[in-house]
């Protein structure tokens, strides 16, 4: 009840830009957790339920989830200008920051110490991505596909994309259509029974 009373809407494209910029600048290694904090808890622009719905749409669509969410949210309030404002808020200043760091690195890339530093950071970056994979793997147990098929599909993806370096498009279209078809059949069968 109190949720609906607190609910607000963004007042202008400028406010959209500022809020999305603020959340982007707080997000290290992914902006989504900060997005919830800003949009739901601080601004009250979305309820928890609305946030989850927007997130699930953003996740089903291809492309960066947070950008998709910002585009749809901005568009909902101020049309294409809102979409542009939210998206620019997410990208412009963070892009300037990261470019500055990158140019600094490029100036000294030939220095063995700097090259070593970047190799170390790269190793950590690889580890960060792997940790996301490990966290995701816990959801496989409840997958409608069943654990053995999931493991087989993941292993086939690693072997073809990571090992054999096949183009991603063929692997995703090939394995993806097999996986989605099996999931569809099982979901439909489960619903038929209930």
């Amino acid at each position, binding site marked *: 009840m109190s949720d609906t009373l607190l609910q607000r809407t963004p007042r202008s494209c400028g406010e959209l830009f500022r809020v999305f910029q603020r959340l*982007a600048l707080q997000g290290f290694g992914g902006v989504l957790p900060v997005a919830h904090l800003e949009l739901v808890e601080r601004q009250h622009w979305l309820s928890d339920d609305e946030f989850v719905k927007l997130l699930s749409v953003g996740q089903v669509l*291809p*492309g960066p989830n947070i950008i998709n969410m910002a585009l749809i949210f901005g568009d909902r309030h101020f049309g294409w200008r809102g979409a542009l404002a939210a998206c620019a808020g*997410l990208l412009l200043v963070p892009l300037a920051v990261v470019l500055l760091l990158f140019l600094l690195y490029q100036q000294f890339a030939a220095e063995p110490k700097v090259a*070593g530093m970047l190799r170390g950071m790269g190793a*950590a970056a690889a580890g*960060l991505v792997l940790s996301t994979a490990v966290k995701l793997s816990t959801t496989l147990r409840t997958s409608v596909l069943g654990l053995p098929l999931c493991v087989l599909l993941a292993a086939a*993806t690693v072997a073809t994309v990571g090992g054999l370096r096949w183009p*991603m498009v063929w692997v995703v279209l090939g394995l993806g259509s097999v996986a989605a078809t099996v999931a569809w059949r099982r979901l439909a069968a489960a619903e038929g029974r209930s």
Partner: protein
Amino acid sequence: MNVAGWEVLGLHGLGWGDLLQMGLHFAMLSLLAVSGVVTTAPDMQRYLVGQQGWISADQFTASVAIAQAAPGPNILFVALVGWSVAGPAGLLVTMGGMMLPSSALALAVGRYGRRRADALPMRAFTAGMVPLTLGLLLSTGWVLAAPIRDRWLGVALVLGTAALMVRKRVSPLWPIAAGAAVGLLGWV
């Protein structure tokens, strides 16, 4: 900046045809990035490092590492990769290619999409993509580790970071800072 420094603003020897081809490749990846842009990193690396030879594996991994160390959405590594390949023009091409198709689709679905995310085909698609996403993320880790795979301390850093982040809720800046320190000492 000295005169040589301005070379970073050039196309690094690429032609406009190369840029167009790169833009189209990234536009295709945009539509394949169902579980986030990071899952397309292995194919980006295959295309830019392996197939075209425009940048080295070290440069590719460095671009991702710097983007991880800075605030903002993950997609910014695409901008740095583009900049490494062909300066500002490269940045515009890779970011434009990566953003435009998926953004147009998102806006269209946001406005006219009547099919809900909980409809059966959508749920089947999402469920089917999960194991592939897992495989793509593992491949990303493998590909990013290319510059240090033959150094034991580098491998330890990769695995240690992964183990730490799975067990503890800490800022990703800590392992990156640790990696930077270890690298600065010349150990990896």
